[in-house]
């Protein structure tokens, strides 16, 4: 069977897609993400940064304007709100209904660093002081602090990652700098919580006995990496060998086995689904016997989805084991199955699925990890470009603090 021509990243289309996201209103379908506008904003900025055109396709004035907008969402008590939608006006500053949000605060910092801001206007002490207040006894973190000091939000690995990333950005790797005398988070508690959430499959879940999930696994490994606890001897994972098996097992042919019987599955893997056969796009194998398209799923026996190409590859990259995946299969999955003709990436390898901001960023991020030509390198741990991370690490206050 002949192998089709190699796929390419449609870079100009991606640039157009992201500029459109930045310069025009998002369609009203995005209303359900209204409270996460700082997160969406981060993806737009970071995507253009990965595409290497944040400083060429936008003006100094644009970037200064966005930086100011992000700071406008910083609260007087420190930390960032998730969206101007919760801004209750001057009289209500500090209201319990307009609280600083842990994930929004992380994405605000990451966007500011990507935009070239030096974080001078960040209320660092206040934000750092918030972190131990939203950490629970079991080591996990909440999403925000309620009016009566109650920790709000499910026990969730995403908040753990965001809290630890804020700490790393503001305190440095050793956790001892920038702001002297601020109470630190309970690091051992974090490690213990992550360990308790490792499932019998050896992926990480939301809590003890939850199902292993690649997105949560990325958050856990990222948190351990940022705490300097991701090394084979003294980290929060049972063993690296176990988690490597689980992570590499996430890569599957793009038509994953799901609710099919063995014979049906085998036939689909060999010949393609009926839909694909009709479309003349049967799954084929390359000369090396490997499937041509192989994305990643997030849980055992689930289907491939663009975002898991990042969650899994990012996790493996932090463990210095990214080379164990099939680059070609992932690349072709992204470029031929989910890359959209208007730019961006769709969530699923299903014709007719429109691109969206989250998956469009994740697709680029996964390709950047695999050193796709034309993309800047991505730091897998902070999820920003290497240049942005280096800029942070060379800021005066950061350098002084980190020693």
């Amino acid at each position: 069977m002949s192998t089709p021509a190699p796929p390419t990243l449609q870079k100009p289309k991606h640039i157009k897609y992201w500029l459109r996201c930045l310069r025009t209103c998002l369609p009203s379908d995005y209303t359900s993400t209204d409270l996460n506008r700082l997160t969406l904003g981060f993806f737009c900025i970071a995507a253009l940064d990965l595409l290497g055109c944040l400083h060429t396709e936008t003006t100094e004035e644009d970037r200064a304007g966005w930086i100011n907008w992000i700071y406008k969402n910083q609260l007087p008590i420190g930390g960032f709100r998730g969206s101007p939608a919760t801004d209750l006006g001057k009289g209500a500053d500090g209201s319990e209904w307009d609280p600083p949000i842990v994930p929004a605060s992380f994405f605000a910092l990451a966007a500011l660093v990507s935009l070239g801001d030096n974080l001078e206007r960040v209320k660092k002490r206040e934000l750092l002081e918030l972190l131990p207040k939203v950490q629970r006894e079991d080591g996990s973190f909440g999403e925000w602090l309620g009016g009566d000091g109650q920790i709000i939000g499910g026990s969730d690995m995403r908040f753990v990652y965001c809290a630890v990333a804020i700490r790393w950005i503001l305190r440095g790797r050793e956790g001892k700098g920038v702001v002297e005398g601020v109470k630190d988070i309970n690091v051992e508690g974090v490690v213990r919580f992550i360990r308790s959430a490792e499932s019998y499959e050896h992926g990480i879940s939301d809590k003890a006995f939850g199902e292993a999930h690649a997105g949560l696994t990325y958050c856990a490994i990222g948190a351990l990496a940022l705490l300097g606890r991701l090394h084979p001897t003294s980290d929060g994972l049972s063993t690296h060998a176990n988690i490597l098996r689980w992570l590499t097992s996430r890569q599957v042919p793009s038509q994953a086995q799901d609710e099919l019987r063995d014979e049906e599955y085998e036939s689909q893997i060999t010949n393609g689904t009926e839909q694909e056969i009709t479309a003349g796009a049967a799954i084929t194998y390359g000369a090396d016997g490997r499937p041509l398209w192989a994305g990643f799923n997030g849980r055992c026996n689930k289907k491939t989805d663009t975002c898991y190409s990042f969650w899994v590859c990012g996790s493996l990259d932090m463990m210095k084991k990214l080379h164990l995946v099939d680059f070609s299969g992932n690349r072709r999955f992204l470029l031929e199955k989910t890359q959209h003709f208007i730019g961006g990436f769709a969530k699923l390898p299903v014709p007719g699925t429109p691109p969206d901001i989250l998956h469009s960023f994740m697709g680029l991020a996964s390709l950047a990890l695999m050193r796709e030509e034309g993309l800047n390198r991505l730091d897998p741990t902070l999820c920003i470009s290497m240049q942005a991370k280096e800029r942070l690490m060379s800021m005066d206050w950061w350098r002084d603090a980190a020693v």
Partner: protein
Amino acid sequence: MNQPPPDSYASDPTWADLLPLPQDDGQHPLAQIAYTEEYTEAMSYLRAIMAKNEHSPRVLQVTAHIIEMNPAHYTIWLYRAKTLLALSAAGEVQLGCELEFLNDLALRHQKNYQIWNHRQTVVEAIAAAAPAEQEQLVREEKGFMNSMFERDEKNYHVWSYRQWLVRRFKAWDGELSFVAALLERDVRNNSAWNHRFFVVFGGMDAQRGPEEGEREEEGEVVEREVRFIEDAVFIAPQNASSWNYLRGVLKKAHRPLSSVESMCLVYAPLDEPDKITSSHALDLLADIYTEKTEEHGKAVKALELLAAKFDPIRANYWNYRVGLIKAAA
């Protein structure tokens, strides 16, 4: 309980006393959204009433209205919960009605996660108010989850909620047969396998006293689980879920992987590669043989079969494992 939303808040007498608080997006906003007029107006009234921190029945009206348009609005859920609890304490609302509201929403917003968090709060409050009716409550909760599973048997939030419910109300009875029925329908449902692990081992831990050691019947439980896995593997040898579960059970029971060598050989006879029906059996055999230096040759053979023929996507990974074995020699 939730009054239907007004055609317009501005012209509704219930809302006449409030000055709407429009959104100030500021200059150069990021990720601006083309809100509908309906959402824009309702949000302006929500901000106004939140700024007053009011906990009255009309809060339920505006929050239900916005949740319908944006169920991922996280602060609104807590605001609604606080209002509900205050009104319920004053005897003005029945918390049971809130569950009906949530049922309808959850069925239509399968991926939403805040709904389930809120549901925990409401169920806790109902249970605290009527301890005698807890059993009935748990039964109804399980019943509702079944209708969620009919739409998506792998919904992460629902499974997570189910674990909370079972643990919180010690509702372990019936869980094993529930999960067995799901696996009978789809033996590849990994969420169901995971729940089985929770029920069998989480339940064992929960029901055992803190000082108590391993009970005698626990050995029987492990035997039962291994038999269950054997049946599942027989039906679908190439199903990763059951093999992963097998590894989990063996580890929990402190049994060596080698105790299932003969079972693996049924699905992966190393000497007759044409008869191999499971890459997972090969993988497990490779682990078993890696443990003994004199069997390293067999381990390498299994890994090479995986790389070349039975799981070529992961060729890099299998070759890496061969490298580890050779480095150890």
